[in-house]
Each structure stands twice: as structure tokens, then as C-alpha cells.
């Protein structure tokens, strides 16, 4: 997902200027280590949300201070936010970059598949340790939400490690099978004497 809807939601909670908005996002997500959003990205998103008519800026000046632009959602913005909250949250774990890498390595011989698996495993164990360490530094009595977020990261990393074990154990079978290729499609109209996919006209 993009940070767009998160930022829109935080503006619905309270109108804010860009700097405050970035700080609010960082606090929500549990720090830069979890999700680092650069200031430029926040300002670009604010611009796009404004152009789309989902938020509206208002200039305020605080007793001699510099002029600041405070943003708040428009009616359309609030409608957009409600629709996003109500919509199904999609996950696409089958869009897996490591899987693609492994298949390309098998297809091209560009890398040793077992080495890819080993390197990936080492990297996952390191990340697992670093996420676990960060989670342990959080007090669940005050920040349970962030503990739960990192628990999810640990679960996914551990599942990835199990998956690598499965691939490693069965790599030879995968290797013996041919790399998936598209099924050749027949061009043109089907011959007249063949049934047309069983469909009745």
C-alpha cells in the first residue's frame, strides 16, 4: 500500500502541517526502523491529495512565526477514507520476488540456486533477530500495538524460513521438471468440425 491513505486518515484524526504529519505517521508505525517515510514523500503526497480534492490546505500564522499550511480532509476525502476502511485489505504473498529469482536462476544458470537459498536464509535469520530485539525493547503494557506489529513481522520471517527449508528439500525435483513455459495457443478460428468449448450458441 502507499502511505496516502494513512496520511489522509491521520489528517482526519486532526488537521496537521507536513512536519507534524510525518511525525504522526512515524509514531503510529513505531519508528523509522519499521517504515521510513521521507519528508519529500510526505509533501509530494500532500500535493497529490490536494490536487485530487481529498484534502484542503489552510494557512495559519502563529504569533509572529512563519506561515504554515495546515491540511484537513474535504468531504470527498472523508468519503474516500470510509471506502478504504470498508474495503478488503489485499495481500499477495504469491507475488514473491525470491521465487522469481530462484526460477530465473534455474532458467538462466545466472546463479547457483542453493547459494541463493543459503544467502536468503542467512539474511532472514539476521532480520528475524533484529526484529525480535526491537520487539523486546517495547513495553507491551504501554505499546502493545507495536509489539503485535512486530509479532506479525516475526511470524512472516519464520514462515519464510520454513518455506526455504521446503524448497531446499525439494529443489532437485523442481530442477528435474522443466521451467514453466506458456502453453502454445492455437491461432485463428477453431476448425468447424470441433465443438467450440462446449458452449451452446
Amino acid at each position: 500500500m502507499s502511505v496516502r491513505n494513512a496520511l489522509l486518515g491521520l489528517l482526519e484524526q486532526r488537521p496537521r502541517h507536513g512536519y507534524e504529519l510525518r511525525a504522526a505517521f512515524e509514531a503510529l508505525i513505531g519508528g523509522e526502523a519499521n517504515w521510513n517515510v521521507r519528508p519529500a514523500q510526505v509533501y509530494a503526497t500532500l500535493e497529490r491529495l490536494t490536487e485530487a480534492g481529498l484534502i484542503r490546505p489552510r494557512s495559519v500564522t502563529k504569533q509572529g512565526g512563519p506561515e504554515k499550511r495546515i491540511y484537513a480532509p474535504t468531504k470527498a476525502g472523508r468519503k474516500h477514507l470510509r471506502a478504504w476502511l470498508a474495503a478488503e485489505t489485499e495481500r499477495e504473498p504469491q507475488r514473491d520476488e525470491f521465487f522469481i529469482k530462484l526460477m530465473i536462476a534455474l532458467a538462466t544458470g545466472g546463479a547457483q540456486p542453493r547459494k541463493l537459498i543459503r544467502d536468503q536464509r542467512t539474511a532472514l535469520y539476521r532480520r528475524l533477530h533484529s526484529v525480535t530485539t526491537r520487539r523486546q525493547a517495547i513495553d507491551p503494557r504501554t505499546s502493545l500495538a507495536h509489539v503485535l506489529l512486530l509479532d506479525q513481522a516475526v511470524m512472516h520471517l519464520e514462515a519464510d524460513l520454513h518455506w526455504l527449508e521446503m524448497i531446499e528439500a525439494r529443489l532437485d525435483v523442481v530442477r528435474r521438471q522443466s521451467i514453466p513455459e506458456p502453453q502454445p495457443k492455437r491461432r485463428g478460428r477453431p476448425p468447424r468440425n470441433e465443438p467450440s468449448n462446449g458452449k451452446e450458441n
Partner: protein
Amino acid sequence: MPAVSTEQLTKIYGEPNAAVTALDHVSMHVDVGEFVAVMGPSGCGKSTLLHLIGGLDRPTEGRVFLNGSDLSGLDDEAISAVRRRNIGFVFQFYNLLPVLNALENAALPLSLDGVDPAVARQKAGQWLERFDLGNRLGHRPDQLSGGQQQRVAIARALVAEPSLILADEPTGNLDSLASDQIAALLARISSEWGRTVLIVTHDPRIAAQADRILFLKDGKLVDEAVLESKDSRNAEIVADRMRRVGG
């Protein structure tokens, strides 16, 4: 012969001009059937030590011996084979496959390795019975409690009969009661069934179940505590030692 030993084990990460020494000439050993916990402040090198012993990473210097054989003499492929045959990892979450029952989940590593299904089921059943799950073999994960799922997951780590069990913060997500149970189970795996267990933990209550604790700081082995008996005051003793180390 110890189950695991290291000689002057050193790991340096990064480029020479920005190098970080994660592990600094550590020599240690774990005897066969011993339960050892590694503790130390964040960044002390404890996970690096575990990863080097687990064959997940290569040392910059020094050597790792598993059952007397030197891992540094092996190529990556051979290290992978040693790891798969000799080392079982215990994770924090169970990640059991929902469509398989307890027996099938525990047997999975053997099934994947092409072991005869009857043998795989028999071995898995044996571990599940040891873990008091003999009457739950046909239950799927959603029919098991969290603690039972964790025991199935530990059975899965043991089913290929690894000589060494490794765990990096094995109880991170559990409440303290469940943590105590897992720690007690790890202790039984070593005391009753003679498996070697090496864990990294920050939790004195978990470490207190071990036979021996190694304390690391700044990549160096700085202290060691032998816990002769399982005493309820051990956790306090461990916590006190941890404070002295600076954790």
C-alpha cells in the same frame, strides 16, 4: 568430545574502513546433552555466535566444530547438509500447516526428505507422545491450544533427530507462564533425552533453566555461570549476573 566448540571465533562485518567486530575471538564449548544459554546486552554478538554455530554464516577468523568436525573445512553445500542433518531450529511462532494434523506437521521435515511415511509418522508420534500429545495426533492446529501447537513445532524441530537444538529467543511472544513451560521443555530435551540445546535469550527466567550460561559483551566472552541445581532463586542470580555484565 563436545557437541559444539568454537576456537577463537571472530566475525567482522563491513568494509575495512567501517568494520564492526560482532564477535571477537570467542572460544567456548557445549557438551553433549548440555543445555547452555547465551546472554548479553543488545549487540553483544550472541546471535552472531548462534548463526556461525548453525552454519548460517561464515566466520572471519577462527573455527566451529560440530561433533568434532571442523565446519571451516567444508564448502557451503556441505555445511548446508551438516546443518540439515544435525541442527534443529526452534522458532518463536509455531507456523504449523493448517491442513495437516499434529502428527503430519511434526513428521513434515522427514516427509520432505523422502523418508518412508510410516517411519516418519512413527518418529513424529514418538516425540509427540514424549510431549504429552499422544492423544492429539489427529488434531489440526486450530484444534490445539497455543502451548500444544508450540510443542508440535518443537517436535517438528526434533523429528529428524538433530544432535543440536538451537533457538534464538524461543519464547519472545509468549506470556511468562507459557515461557516457563517452553524453557522447562527445552531443559527436559537435554536432561531426559540427551539432546544438546543452545539458546540465546534476554530472559533470566528462561536462562535459569539452563545448566550453564555464557555472558557475552562487545563480542567477547566475559563471564560464565554454572547452575548446579534447578533452584527457584536461579533467575535472580542470573539477572544479577546480567546486570554486572551490563545488560
